[in-house]
């Protein structure tokens, strides 16, 4: 085989493998399409023009540097809460506690306002505090599950609400801002991330999110402990047979998930927020935990997929703001509705079977590529 034929066939084989490997991503795209269509339907029923709405949404989200930046700013905390859900899901559990863990992380973040440190060090301390707080808050449900077998869905929800009320109390007392009774003290300037793109909400904080996602990827797929976590999640009996201590993996997964959620709070408080403080009614931190779950599922619970998926949802939200100002002023809450439909659609595992023609086409595409590969190899013999 000649040089060029070798490389072509290797290239084609790589593309083929990627396409088949992307099959799960394909389902996410389908679900997203279904969600957007449902959204269009609701818009139309409610008297709005879906095409104008979506067009302005798209423009607002991705058309220019500022749209992209705003999308990214919204995406950053979502990446982290999505990782919370996904890490635990890979370990075989449902951690719905990102909301509460995020709040605790937020409280810890603003608390660094009590002392002064040089920038850089202050950043690190804030990030660490946030992670520890989030981690500690997820240990509770983990221990309850391991010792008493309490279903983590219920315990994490309860912890969410406890965190909710606890934080209201603390915001009104310990952490209160002397100038404004509704706010906490703010994260000091020495612990804030500076803007990446002027005029937008995007700060350098996003690099922390990306880095964390990559770290999670490496840990889960390239270390022994990550292997153990995944094995225990897929087949606890076989994991035990393999000498894996499933209790330990569960605990570690929860801990890591909590760390992630805590970190999520820093994305806002040290990054995109304008006041860098928490409010009595939580405003900017609300729903990030739940939205993170949607991001996780669409991202197929894989760190890389989550990065893309978060960008998608960030785009929806950022674009949604612009959509509100367009001639078809759909309220931005539509976005969450679309997200709900997408998640619900993702619950159906064999989506591709329901749209068989589309699947057929991808398969034939794959086969076509395969034929190209084999024929390019066969050319040698003639």
């Amino acid at each position, binding site marked *: 085989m000649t040089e060029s034929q070798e490389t072509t066939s290797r290239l084609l084989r790589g593309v083929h493998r990627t396409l088949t490997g992307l099959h799960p991503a394909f389902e996410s795209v389908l679900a997203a399409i279904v969600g957007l269509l449902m959204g269009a339907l609701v818009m139309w029923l409610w008297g709005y023009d879906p095409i104008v709405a979506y067009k302005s949404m798209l423009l607002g989200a991705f058309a220019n540097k500022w749209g992209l930046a705003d999308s990214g700013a919204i995406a950053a905390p979502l990446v982290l809460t999505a990782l919370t859900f996904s890490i635990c899901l890979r370990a075989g559990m449902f951690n719905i506690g990102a909301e509460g863990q995020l709040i605790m992380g937020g409280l810890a973040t603003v608390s660094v306002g009590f002392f002064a440190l040089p920038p850089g060090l202050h950043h690190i301390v804030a990030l660490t505090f946030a992670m520890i707080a989030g981690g500690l808050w997820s240990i509770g449900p983990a221990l309850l599950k391991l010792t008493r077998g309490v279903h983590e869905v219920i315990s994490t929800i309860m912890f969410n609400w406890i965190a909710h009320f606890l934080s209201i109390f603390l915001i009104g007392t310990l952490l209160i801002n002397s100038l404004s009774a509704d706010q906490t003290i703010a994260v000091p300037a020495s612990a804030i991330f500076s803007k990446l793109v002027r005029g937008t909400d995007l700060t350098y904080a996003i690099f922390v999110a990306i880095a964390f996602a990559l770290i999670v990827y490496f840990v889960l797929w*390239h*270390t*022994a*402990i990550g*292997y*153990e976590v*995944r*094995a225990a999640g*897929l*087949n606890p*009996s*076989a*994991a*035990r*047979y*393999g*000498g894996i*201590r499933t209790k330990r993996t569960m605990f570690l997964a929860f801990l890591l998930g909590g760390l992630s959620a805590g970190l999520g709070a820093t994305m806002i408080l040290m990054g995109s927020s304008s006041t860098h403080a928490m409010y009595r009614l939580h405003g900017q931190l609300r729903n990030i935990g739940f939205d993170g779950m949607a991001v996780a599922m669409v991202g197929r619970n894989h760190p890389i997929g989550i990065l893309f998926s978060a960008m998608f949802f960030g785009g929806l939200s950022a674009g949604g703001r612009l959509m509100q100002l367009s001639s078809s002023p759909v309220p931005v809450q539509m976005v969450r509705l679309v997200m709900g439909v997408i998640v619900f659609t993702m619950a159906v595992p064999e989506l591709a079977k329901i749209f068989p023609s589309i699947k057929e086409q991808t398969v034939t595409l794959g086969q076509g590529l395969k034929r190209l590969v084999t024929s390019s190899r066969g050319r040698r013999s003639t």
Partner: protein
Amino acid sequence: MSEAPASGNVDGYYLRAENITKIYSDGTVAVRDVTMELHSSEIVGLLGENGAGKTTLTKILSGLLPPTKGRVISPRGRIRFTSPREALDFGIGMVHQHFALVGTFTAAENVALSHEHPFARIRLARARERLETLMEESGLHVPLDVPIEKLAVGEQQRVEILKVLSRDVDLLILDEPTSVLTPLEVDELFVLLRRLRDAGKSIILITHKLKEVQSVTDRIVVLRHGELVGDVVTVEATTEHLAKLMVGDVLEQEAGAVELSNEEFPVCRDRHAVDRTTDSVLHVESLSSRGNTGEVAVDDVSFDVYGGEIFGIAGVEGNGQSELVECLTGLRMPFEGTATIKGTNILGKDPRQIYRLGVAHIPEDRWELGLVLPFTLAENAILGVHRWEEFRGPLGFLRWGKINHHVRSLMDRFEIRATGPNAPAKSLSGGNQQKLIVGRELAKDPSIIVASQPTRGLDIGAAKYIRDLLVEMRGAGRAILLVSADLDEVLALSDRVAIMYEGEFMTVCPPENLNRERVGLLMGGVTEKEPVS
């Protein structure tokens, strides 16, 4: 061989299946163009290996599965069953291999489930009455008010049969009914079947056991790879002929070499004298353990396994074999006794530590224990050894390069057919999956191999491969503990055999000292006064 009664109403037929074909959604052809007839007052054996299509065919006949092509007709006209209930109403009842009983219900409640109008108050009293009359008629007895899950397997099967009989069926289908019975219970079952046949019923007996099918049936239908390859009158068929039909020409060579009178595998007659003067590899003393239900499952068991020997444990499943293996492989903690590998204690340790001591474990359930099916071959190949130095670098990073290389050599050595180390384990056939597990375990260079049901569910070719491998390991001086419900397998391969019943070893001796009758009695719990050798 059964005494041939006036079998079958050959002029009319009870049921006729015409050109039945079944293709599953993933493309597998389970049944291919099968045509057969069933008559009343007849016991038909449906013979074939795993995957021959027997269960699928009978599910189609009993209405649980629609055929892709073909039809089932009766003298009353063409029948198409769209639900199990219709089949039951028509008179066809199936007793499954894995009982279709609700565990938490009692026998009476299980029977009540199939009767009566949805909103009626359960007349449990009536259900009990009906059951009691049935028990008288059929000679089957079960406790009526105990939740099914607390009954012994043999009793559960009887409830299952009663449930079907209570619907007044004309055709009774039994799927591998004897795999969970002692020889005594098997005889009782066959007596019942003959009685039902004489009362006019049709019976289909699905099995892969040659001797059984010859002893109780009137006619034998043989399936192979979904096709009907034989429909013979039992008294006219020889065992060898049946075996050949079952297995086919692909393995004809091996089928020829197989001595079917005694075993279906290579004979290992050359048992060299095992050196028992040195220390044993595995030493077990007075081991006792509880099972999952809290009762004693392993009862004061003691034995040794030496290098270069295969120590077999025979017995009907459920007599403590699984629990014993679990105790020795770190999956269960006994409450009494000792067990050591070359002097080091193994009780209470976790599997990883036990593997390091030189133990390999081929588990009895490859899907539940042996493999993580969604994982790739490579990921499965390091299960249990993923922390060993050759696979794990500093900081805990996995050395995928080395791991892939290792998997490739396993694939080579053990002829594992797959698309590559990154193929998901669930895409492999049963035989290849088992080879992966065996390869992985042997790669640990173990002193002792604990093999639990190593050939279960495998076709003849794969089973033979595994057995050859075990014999080879024995020749290389390793110790092997073989636990198998396949009596022929244990007797053929082992140097010494222990028969386990209700947690105890009934006897330990070389297989030559055992004949079928003695084994049957021991497996059935009949103690004897002979000394243990």
